[in-house]
């Protein structure tokens, strides 16, 4: 039998009295696996356990057939983009990714080439000489992906990689992640937005309160989530103009203007995200900086699932 790339067996993780993950067993082999759950569900704890940054309180986590905790060798073939927005702000994107590629075992020239290539693949070549501190939220997300990718690992762990990206960056990143999977990488992606996960893969792990609630195809969850209105927070240079454009969409239930942003409630998130991306690409409503989705709609689905 083929050894799974990631094997999590009866793993629990406590933070003092608080349980982060509760008796989770899952094997991940290849392709893209979406880890879906609301904030505080245990997604990041799961990712950190698989990345060897946390030690299981109970159970075992193996990566490439070896326990990951205390096994630094495994990182030669693993790339991890954590959820935290933390960087060496004074370094340029190229310096940072090159330095981390060197730490991954590449020599100076190979590391520089690999870093330039990784930055190019996430469309950051033109700003690679700029300090990370001056990057936008979307650029920061993408440079995090570049550092995870530069040493060409077989396993990629991407914790909320699309959070805060603009629509075009989001579409590009989704395309990239799918290409990496097609190239043979195993990718675990976490998100609290079903729509994002759905665009990446039909294979999901549903997680809530530290437990895996369901594993497998996304369609049933899709049916459930469609029963709940989906809220999207769009930060834009001209929110009133953007809101006016949204008014023409029949699936938009409500609109709320905030300072520098508009909050939309839609009954058809798929359609909305597609239209939003097209709208941003057309440039007719000015710059759209950031799109985020609060997880209250997903939370409602999870509450429903737990009740079942």
């Amino acid at each position, binding site marked *: 039998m083929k050894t799974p790339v990631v094997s999590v067996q009866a793993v629990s993780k406590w933070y003092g009295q608080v349980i982060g993950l509760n008796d989770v067993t899952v094997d991940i082999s290849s392709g893209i696996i979406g880890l879906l759950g609301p904030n505080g569900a245990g997604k990041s704890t799961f990712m950190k356990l698989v990345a060897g940054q946390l030690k299981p309180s109970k159970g075992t986590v193996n990566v490439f057939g070896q326990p990951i905790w205390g096994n630094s060798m495994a990182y030669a073939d693993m790339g991890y983009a954590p959820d935290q927005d*933390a960087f*060496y702000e004074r*370094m340029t994107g190229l310096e940072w990714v090159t330095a981390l590629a*060197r730490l991954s*075992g590449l020599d100076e020239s190979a590391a520089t080439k690999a870093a330039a290539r990784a930055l190019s693949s996430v469309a950051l070549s033109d700003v690679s000489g700029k300090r990370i501190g001056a990057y936008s939220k979307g650029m920061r997300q993408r440079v995090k992906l570049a550092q995870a990718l530069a040493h060409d690992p077989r396993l990629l762990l991407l914790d909320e990689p699309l959070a805060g990206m603009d629509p075009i960056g989001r579409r590009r990143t989704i395309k990239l992640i799918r290409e990496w999977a097609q190239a043979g990488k195993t990718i675990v992606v976490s998100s609290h937005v079903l729509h994002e996960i759905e665009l990446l893969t039909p294979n999901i792990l549903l997680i809530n309160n530290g437990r895996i609630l369901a594993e497998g195809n996304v369609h049933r969850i899709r049916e459930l989530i469609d029963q709940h209105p989906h809220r999207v927070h769009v930060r834009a240079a001209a929110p009133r103009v953007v809101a006016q454009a949204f008014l023409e969409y029949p699936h938009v239930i409500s609109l709320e203007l905030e300072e520098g942003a508009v909050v939309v409630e839609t009954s058809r998130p798929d359609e909305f995200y597609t239209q939003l991306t097209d709208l941003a690409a057309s440039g007719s409503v000015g710059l759209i900086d950031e799109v985020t989705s609060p997880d209250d709609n997903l939370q409602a689905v999870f509450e429903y699932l737990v009740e079942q």
Partner: protein
Amino acid sequence: MNEGAQESVDGQDAHAARNRVGRPGFLTSSVRVFDFTLSEMLWSRRTIFMALVAGGPVALALLLRAFASFAWLDFEGRVDGSSLEVTGPAIFGLMIWAFYLRFTVPVLGVFYGTALIADEVEDKTLTYLFTRPISRGAVLFGKYLAYLVCTNLVVLPSVVLVFFIVVPMSGNIGASFPSLVVDLGLLGLGIAVYGSIFALIGAWFKHPLLTGLVFVFGWEPIGTVVPGYMKNLTVAYYLQGLVPHAMPQDGSMGMVRTVLQAFQAAPSISFNLFWLSVILVVTLLGATRIVANKEYVLEQ
């Protein structure tokens, strides 16, 4: 060739490059971490604090020199009926001990040494270093090397400045120069030993800065004056034993010796060097071991 296929081919290049180089060894990894973190450390806000601490003795030296130039201070006096002149080399020796070895070096050691890992935890950047195919010990050691370079770059020039400001006051720069070299070596050693102790404290304790300050301003001063073996558990005791040999042997040494009576009982240089080396190695090994096994939970 499409973009995806190009990526794949390029990726194979990266794979091949890594396989060719292999997993970097402990020292190579440490040097790479050192490269990575030196500029971050050097240009941090902490360096401003460090420059202020190291600049204090320089300011004092300038003040003394000004007083001496304008004859506002009398550097001559009488002790036990015989005349005594406090020369520049003697003042310099006293400053090395009182300002640098007993204050600047341990204080900088506390602030930098305890922060080697703590800063990465606080900034949540530790993950990037700990998800590489290098040992966690190499991460700590590389950062420790950066600390050594950083502190030496600030402290040693300050000492050299003080030397050239103070020593010419009734002293001879040429004659005192060998002692400066010894003093610089002594300070470098002090920086290394204190840094390793505070790296251990930083890796071990939840509130390392507080623990480190208690060590510097509580344990060390008390340990060196309490009779018995307690002094053997301080760094200051072993450094004290090296200071007199670094001081100029001129007529004014009597007064300095009187001030620093504790030195008289100091054991041999080799004894002090041996124990300082033991402290350095044991604490560094302890720190790397703790870092290797400790779970760092980065707050969300």
